[in-house]
């Protein structure tokens, strides 16, 4: 056993983010249990349920103005950030409150790996249950039904659909990373959730060119009143070019910057 | 003389009376109907292995958990029906105590005191300051709870249990995690309180129990396996004493062996003898006096041959563990046949 000990002691941890695989494995195992089941049921109910209701609804349906894939984009925009905030605000704060953070960090794992595992765990879980499963299901069934009123839905180009899924994932990533970053700054859940939620609200009516052209604000906002997710809807449903493309890059840059900030701040924390 | 009966006669109801108390979490039985009586103004040590149900019992007494069956009463009041009144006469220290982190030590105590006591603002403030000083917290009075170390927090824990001047103190491991100095301080503090309150405390440090308690009970796997005044545990039924002498002692020992209250005198080492007596009261009064009467001998060491509480404790809990295993084996037997 002594010899074995020495062997294992000699095994160098990987250079990049040591411990990430183990930590991520732990995060993802939560999604395989009850949490995954709850999310599967809730997302199916909310997204598919509202899609069905909207599609088959008649004149009294207040959401009758929305079209099929337009609705999908709208529902994603409403629920993805909310879920991301509700879930990720807790990710680090929970470990801090339960005193499990210092315990995990006393293992041969880097602090950055700890933060990245939180981000990736929530991102992968929500991507699978909220975006991928729901998107694919809608992609398959929506074009096959006759709505109660209006024209039948046309199946969008596959590439465009994949691109939209990518962009939704990016927006999801933004809210996850934002919440994680805020939770490295604040000790309490209140401010973390509040700032994320207010930001989400405000982007509904994003003013100013900078916000419109260089953040996802440009992709999801439209007119002041009524649903108007112009850019993404026009791109997906009406096959217009994506405008502005800079919004996508801007959001990606924000995600990277917030991730960097989160890891840097967390690296300085003492337990 | 039974101090327990004397106390009950003198003070009416016992401080704590528990009858047939059961507690079940899901499918696990944690307490299998325990009976317990804590006389007033006694210091009662509550022992038992981890997971035996000590904390559960205490939490039921302070109304944090509901009993599944049976009843518990504090100062004659039922812990479920008269929960608020019961808690008004209890000061409780939980195992992992936590307080509002934004309060200072004085803040916690002032808030707690006002839950129990009425009086003018200045009287209450003076009372809180007294308690702070008694608990040795003077230098920490304005420190925030979040910044206290484990030992300081524990002292605050005892102080907040005592600040309402309750009749009964229920302390779940009051000396856990304390350094030897801190433990001494807490034990001394409790020792001073014994005149004014009934103290019911659990611990794993048997030395503390030996130092402090009058009465003990041992809980194991949800059953009381032993209870009674601590002396009967430590001395056993027959009195045995160990005596070490200096000088020529043969003549004296021969005389001693003849005394009517002496059963036997046996050497255990070169100058040490083990003396078994039949009448402890007589021995306590006469044994040493009979030595001092002899000019040639000098007592170097005299003490009752007590067993350590640890020995007794381990025996008790091991015996029940064995019984439980046997029982489990019995229960499995028929199941296999079926």
């Amino acid at each position: 056993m002594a010899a074995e000990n020495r062997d294992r002691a000699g095994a160098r941890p990987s250079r990049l983010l040591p411990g990430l695989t183990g930590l991520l494995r732990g995060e993802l195992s939560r999604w395989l249990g009850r949490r995954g089941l709850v999310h599967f049921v809730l997302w199916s109910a909310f997204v598919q349920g509202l899609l069905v209701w909207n599609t088959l609804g008649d004149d009294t349906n207040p959401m009758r103005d929305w079209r099929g894939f337009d609705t999908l984009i709208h529902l994603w925009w409403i629920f993805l950030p909310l879920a991301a905030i509700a879930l990720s605000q807790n990710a680090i704060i929970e470990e801090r409150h339960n005193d499990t953070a210092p315990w995990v960090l006393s293992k041969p794992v880097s602090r950055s790996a700890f933060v990245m595992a939180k981000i990736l765990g929530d991102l992968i879980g929500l991507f699978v249950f909220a975006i991928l499963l729901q998107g694919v299901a809608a992609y398959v069934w929506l074009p096959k039904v006759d709505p109660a009123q209006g024209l039948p839905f046309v199946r969008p180009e596959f590439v465009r659909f994949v691109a939209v899924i990518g962009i939704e994932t990016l927006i999801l990533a933004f809210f996850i990373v934002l919440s994680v970053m805020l939770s490295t700054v604040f000790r309490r859940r209140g401010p973390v959730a509040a700032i994320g939620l207010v930001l989400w609200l405000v982007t509904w009516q994003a003013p100013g060119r900078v916000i419109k052209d260089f953040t996802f604000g440009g992709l999801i906002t439209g007119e002041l009143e009524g649903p108007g997710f112009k850019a993404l809807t026009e791109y997906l449903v009406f096959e217009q070019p994506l405008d502005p493309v800079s919004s996508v890059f801007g959001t990606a840059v924000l995600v990277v910057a917030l991730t960097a900030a989160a890891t840097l701040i967390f690296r300085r924390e003492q337990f | 003389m039974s101090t327990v009966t004397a106390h009950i006669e003198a003070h009416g109801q016992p401080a704590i009376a528990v009858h047939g108390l059961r507690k079940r979490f899901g499918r696990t039985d944690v307490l299998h109907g325990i009976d317990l009586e804590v006389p007033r103004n006694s210091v009662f040590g509550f022992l038992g292995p981890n997971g035996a149900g000590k904390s559960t019992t205490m939490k039921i007494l302070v109304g944090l958990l509901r009993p599944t069956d049976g009843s518990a009463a504090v100062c004659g009041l039922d812990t479920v029906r008269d929960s608020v009144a019961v808690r008004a006469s209890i000061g409780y220290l939980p195992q992992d105590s936590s307080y509002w982190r934004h309060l200072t030590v004085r803040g916690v105590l002032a808030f707690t005191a006002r839950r129990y006591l009425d009086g003018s603002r200045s009287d209450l403030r003076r009372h809180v300051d007294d308690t702070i000083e008694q608990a040795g917290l003077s230098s920490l009075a304005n420190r925030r709870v979040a910044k206290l170390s484990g030992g300081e927090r524990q002292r605050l824990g005892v102080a907040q249990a005592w600040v309402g001047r309750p009749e009964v103190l229920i302390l779940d491991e009051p000396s856990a995690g304390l350094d030897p100095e801190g433990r001494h301080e807490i034990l001394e503090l409790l020792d001073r309180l014994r005149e004014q309150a009934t103290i019911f405390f659990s611990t794993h440090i048997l030395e503390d129990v030996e130092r402090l308690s009058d009465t003990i009970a041992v809980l194991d796997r949800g059953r009381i396996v032993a209870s009674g005044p601590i002396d009967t545990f430590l001395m056993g039924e027959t009195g045995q004493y160990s005596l070490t002498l200096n000088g020529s002692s043969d003549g004296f020992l021969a005389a001693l062996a003849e005394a009517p209250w002496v059963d036997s005198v046996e050497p255990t080492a070169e100058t040490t003898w083990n003396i078994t007596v039949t009448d402890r009261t007589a021995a306590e009064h006469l044994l040493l006096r009979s030595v001092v009467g002899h000019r040639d001998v000098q007592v170097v060491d005299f003490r009752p041959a007590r067993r350590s509480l640890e020995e007794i404790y381990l025996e008790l809990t091991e015996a029940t563990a064995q019984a439980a295993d046997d029982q489990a084996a019995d229960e499995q037997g028929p199941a296999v046949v079926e």
Partner: protein
Amino acid sequence: MPASLSRVQSQSRLRGIGGLTLAEFLRWFPWRVLVFAASGVAVLVFARVVWAAEENAKLAPLLYIFFSLWVAVLVLSTVATTQGAVSSEIEEGTAAWLIAKPIGRPAFVLSKFAGAIPAVLIGMVGIPGAIARVVLKRAADNGDTDFTAAQVMDVIANSSSRDEYMNLPSMSRYLGLLALIGTLMLLVVAVMILLGCVVRAQTAVLGLGIAAPVGLLLVGQLAPTAVAELTPGWVLTSIVDIISDNPAPVLAPILVTVVWIWVTLAGAVLLFSRREL
């Protein structure tokens, strides 16, 4: 125990509610209240920026943008702030500390609500509401850039709009609007307290907390009127109607919601008194 002190005698299940309420109140004052008041003003500024960007001369859109956004911000940030009111006290063990004292369990739950009332009414709704009144009035008066004390008094005292097509609500209507918003916020606080007594996981407390007002909105809009008017969704409908310059009742929806608040709190009290700590 010094002779000058006596034991508290009450054995009521509300014993201790005074001290607990004061402690709750001090959690809100002053910092949280200031942050809420400041965020109300920030929403106002934001709404004006959006309004200006749209080059819209009418006041109606400003009213609509500000109030819809403000109510949403208030609801969500209150949900975020109060998510731990009960649940984190249970999680951290401070609830066990309190309940081991001679404090009635109902007192613990109700103090959470009572302590929040002044903060909600003054800090969340009152102060930003008053400031908004001044700013909206200025927007309605179109063009004045500086304030005088006399002007502010005039705005507060004078209830009618001078500009016919801007439709700033009359003072009484405006106060009614604020009362509706205040009632809604108190309901949110009560619901969060209830959730804290039921749900263990923090994520679920927040998630359900967010879902509850969204559900209310849907009920208010989709359910048949007769049903909707039995729910707190009526308050939301009234708020929307007032800021859209439609006639709407004020008192009735508030009364209905107050009943719901009591039902919610009663549920919380009941659940918490059965909770093992």
